[in-house]
């Protein structure tokens, strides 16, 4: 009989993924918000069906639209998620607010314990921030814990703040991904899903797995 069990944690080590999703008014056109919703829904569905071999994937969604950011989905084990309520696009682009929420989450050891694997932050935006975002941006990139996160970024359309998003992404093998249409958004989410899933099943879940954006052969993702 195992006698040391009472000293052992009875939850798997978390692998947190935090999505910062732009839901400003401009996302409501050209099918962008619909593509974002489908991408998020498919990603969560895929995570929830993972066999969770080496880590427990936990998902959080922070939205920025309207007049302030919101914690749409607190960090939750993916296998406990029952569904995903579609996001509605409206208002401004308060990115700084969203970055502050993400920083607070990552620096909080009660929210993400030290035994967790390195978090993944995914930033998706189609425009320029409308609040004071520079200081929260620097805090997230340089925070004691948040600086260790893997960061992916996707700019949607021609009006995205490419410079800011490029500075955000820190995976040398996956610089800013630029989406021109709904299919590209789907491809990005699929690549993020595959990267995180690969990490969750890896012998070394802390090793970043590069994004591998597949070719545009998804015929069901036409505008």
């Amino acid at each position, binding site marked *: 009989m195992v*006698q040391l069990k009472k*000293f052992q944690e009875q939850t798997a080590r978390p692998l947190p993924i935090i999505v910062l999703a732009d839901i400003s008014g401009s996302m409501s056109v050209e099918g962008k918000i619909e593509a974002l919703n489908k991408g998020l829904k498919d990603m969560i569905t895929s995570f929830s069906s993972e066999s969770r071999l*080496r880590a*427990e994937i936990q998902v959080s969604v922070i939205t920025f639209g309207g007049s302030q950011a919101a914690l749409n989905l607190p960090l939750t084990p993916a296998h406990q998620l029952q569904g995903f309520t579609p996001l509605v696009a409206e208002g401004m682009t308060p990115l700084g607010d969203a970055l502050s929420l993400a920083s607070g989450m990552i620096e909080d050891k009660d929210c993400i314990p030290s035994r*967790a694997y390195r978090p993944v932050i995914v930033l998706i935006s189609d425009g320029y921030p409308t609040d004071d975002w520079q200081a929260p941006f620097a805090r997230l990139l340089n925070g*004691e814990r948040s600086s260790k996160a893997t960061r992916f970024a996707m700019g949607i359309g021609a009006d995205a703040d490419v410079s800011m998003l490029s500075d955000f992404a820190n995976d040398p093998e996956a610089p800013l991904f630029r989406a021109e249409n709904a299919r590209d958004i789907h491809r990005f989410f699929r690549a993020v899903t595959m990267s995180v899933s690969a990490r969750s099943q890896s012998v070394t879940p802390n090793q970043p797995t590069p994004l591998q954006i597949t070719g545009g052969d998804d015929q069901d993702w036409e505008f």
Partner: protein
Amino acid sequence: MRLLAGGASVRGPAHQQDGLPNQDALCVSGIRGGWCIAVADGLGSRPLSHLGSQKAVQLFRRLTRQRQDWGHGEVAQVLRDAWLAHFGDRYRAYETTCLWAWVDAAGRGVAGQGGDGLLLGRSQGVFKVLTAQRQGFGNQTTTLAQADLPGCWSTELVLSLPGDGVLLMTDGISDDLVAEQLASFFDAIYQRQLRCSKRRMRQWLTTELHGWSTPCHGDDKTIAGIFRTD
């Protein structure tokens, strides 16, 4: 005064599944009436880290045998230099952590670590977590080769009372221990050591590590301890 030591190392489920070797290493050796113990955790991302971890514990044992005394401030540097000298320019393929302790027949010694893992101690009846709290996330490892960094340190040990001791473990164990239960965990190992030979202690620890209960655990697991029993 009586000193007992024990330890065990098991290959984790992830390495069993992938047919990879145990990348941890262990030594428990009697030296001049005292004991030297070391555990090491080869970096999963390095192809030959299982050899690097084995070499680290072997070098600690050899260096301890060669010396009559260790100044605790020199251990990390001496061990690091010896390890780097062995692997030379190819050392990155072999990178490993290392935790070590040596206690002489009088109950005095040194303990320290380079990289991840946990070092627990009880001296003069007072339990202490000797490893500083980690600021980052799991498996973000500094290594023995970086022994001049703040994550690498050593301290003197004085085992003056029965129940005093030192316990070393790799992060395959320490990351899954309940933080509030570390003193009780230390005591449970000590109580078992009291009634076990070195061989039976290894068997018991091996069974315990193979029966690890944390969901999804995958790491190799290695633990070693020295205890004063009277």
